[in-house]
């Protein structure tokens, strides 16, 4: 019989209570996996989208909302002559409710800029020109909206025609409705306004030069922010808020898990005071009793973590399939995140077991004989 057997038997003593505690931790860990996975996935999908468009620098005015604040399209004229800039593309990116989709990315792009280059036609055609009342849908967006080539699509008060289905090489692109910038400005009443400028730098430009260019753009146009794509999301207040909220909510759930485990382990120690006294009476060291309690709570945490990771992954898949966010995100359920979640669960177990273990170490063996 190994020490692990002793630990497992301790947990199996009250199976229902152990099971309920396990569920408590699992829910906390599932929250970590789901919320953090989604927020990370959200960031990642935007980053992949930017990379797919071949963007090196993003000029925008990120606010606390998820989409940038609009600014004058004339900003482009002020920065397009700066060194190392190979190409630019003005955009208006908005999250909008379109027909049966509560939240759809609408990506309006300056006609004929490099922002159209990554789009590969799956069916249909691209718009003939900037003024055609036409839209192309990413593959996922077409599925979500249940549209095919030739179908009408209502954007705001204007009816557009779906002329093509495209693959954009990134989830964000595939989940977007893409149309010309001037058309979008016209139908939304945002004439002369854009909210993003994608910049592609010359091929030989070093990272240092890219950073210097960003600084130069900011000096030239103080009302916007220019960041390289690697810094784009980490510097965004909106994403930082999403990240903080997902971790904050998760940690609250984890805290509930901590209290659950602590309660269980305390009950265990109280109930097993007699048993612990027997162990002390037959020669077990207090350190071994402490180790036993800590191992039990750590094992409880570990099992809760494993179950929680699975629950979280399932929850994410269900969320992914909900119409409101379908096609908008690809959760980051990387091994790293899942590993972190299990480590958190084990830490929850150990931390929760500290007080009960300390309490158990204060029991005296004499009570066995007196009893």
């Amino acid at each position, binding site marked *: *019989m190994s020490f692990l057997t*002793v630990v497992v038997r301790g947990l199996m003593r009250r199976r229902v209570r152990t099971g309920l505690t396990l569920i408590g931790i699992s829910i906390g860990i599932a929250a970590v996996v789901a919320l953090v996975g989604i927020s990370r996935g959200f960031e990642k999908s935007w980053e992949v989208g930017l990379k797919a468009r071949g963007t090196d620098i993003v000029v925008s005015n990120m606010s606390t909302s998820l989409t940038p604040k609009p600014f004058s399209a004339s900003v482009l004229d002020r920065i397009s002559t700066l060194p190392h800039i190979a190409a630019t593309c003005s955009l208006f990116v908005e999250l909008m409710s379109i027909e049966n989709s509560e939240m759809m990315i609408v990506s309006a792009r300056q006609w004929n800029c490099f922002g159209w280059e990554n789009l590969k036609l799956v069916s249909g055609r691209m718009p003939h020109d900037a003024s055609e009342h036409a839209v192309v849908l990413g593959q996922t967006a077409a599925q979500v909206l249940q549209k095919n080539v030739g179908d009408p699509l209502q954007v705001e008060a204007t009816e557009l025609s779906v002329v093509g289905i495209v693959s954009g090489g990134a989830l964000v692109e595939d989940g977007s409705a893409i149309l010309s910038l001037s058309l979008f400005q016209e139908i939304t009443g945002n004439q002369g306004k854009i909210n993003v400028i994608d910049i592609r730098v010359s091929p030989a430009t070093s990272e240092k030069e890219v950073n210097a260019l960003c600084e130069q753009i900011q000096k030239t146009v103080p009302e916007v922010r220019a960041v390289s794509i690697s810094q784009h999301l980490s510097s965004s207040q909106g994403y930082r808020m999403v990240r903080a909220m997902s971790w904050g909510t998760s940690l609250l759930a984890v805290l509930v898990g901590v209290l659950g485990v602590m309660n269980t382990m305390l009950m265990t120690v109280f109930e097993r005071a007699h048993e612990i006294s*027997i162990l002390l*009476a*037959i*020669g*077990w060291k207090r350190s071994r009793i402490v180790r036993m309690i800590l191992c039990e709570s750590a094992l409880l945490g570990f099992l809760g973590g494993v179950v929680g990771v699975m629950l979280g992954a399932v929850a994410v898949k269900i969320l992914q399939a909900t119409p409101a966010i379908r096609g908008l995100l690809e959760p980051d359920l990387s091994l790293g995140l899942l590993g972190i979640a299990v480590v958190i669960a084990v830490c929850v177990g150990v931390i929760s077991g500290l007080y009960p273990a300390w309490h158990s170490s204060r029991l*005296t063996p*004499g009570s066995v004989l007196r009893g």
Partner: protein
Amino acid sequence: MNSSSPVGEAATPLVFEAVDLKKDFDDGQVQALRGVSFRISENDFIAITGPSGCGKTTLLQLLGGLDRPTAGTLRYRGNSIEDLPDLAAYRAREIGFVFQAFHLLPTFTSFENVQIPMFETDRRPSQRAERALELLKAVGLEHRLNHFPSKLSGGERQRVAIARSLANGPSVLLADEPTGNLDSVSAGLVLDLIARIHQEQQMTVILVTHDMEIARRASTTFLMKDGQFVDGSPQH
């Protein structure tokens, strides 16, 4: 002062020596032991007897290092038990306990219960299992290895408890009313087993009982009353 062998005349090495041993509870309101002195030698078979509440169990607790005396001195092989560097190791290796209520762990089988004390030794799991099997065979329970305590009779439980007490090869067996919860047949078997262990393993046995019949099986009897040895005790 009472002693099983007078001071200066010990023929065999002393195992325990107590001088004016006192134990109070509840801030001195209860005086469980009121200054007892005695000597117990190697291979002695001592019975401590007396009415309930006379201090027998308290004395056993002090001998087993489960509690500390309020005053007086208690030595094990010349060393003060209170000053032993590792009291848990003393309990694990030197002392075997047998309790009236058996005190087996309910979630472990007989076989596993006997292995529990051996976690405090260097034995590997396979060696622990081997030793547990050997001990359970010795107490006639090889056919009950995988039975949980709830599935054993009182006598069988006590025999498992005796096997457990011998797990680490202690030199002293402390038994607190070991037959208190048993019928007469089972009690006889358990007492025979304890007597056999005493003889075969040359082990010092200290047995607490309120039954004078049982006490007579020991080589020496300490009769206690109100926390003290009664005049004339020890009785041979």
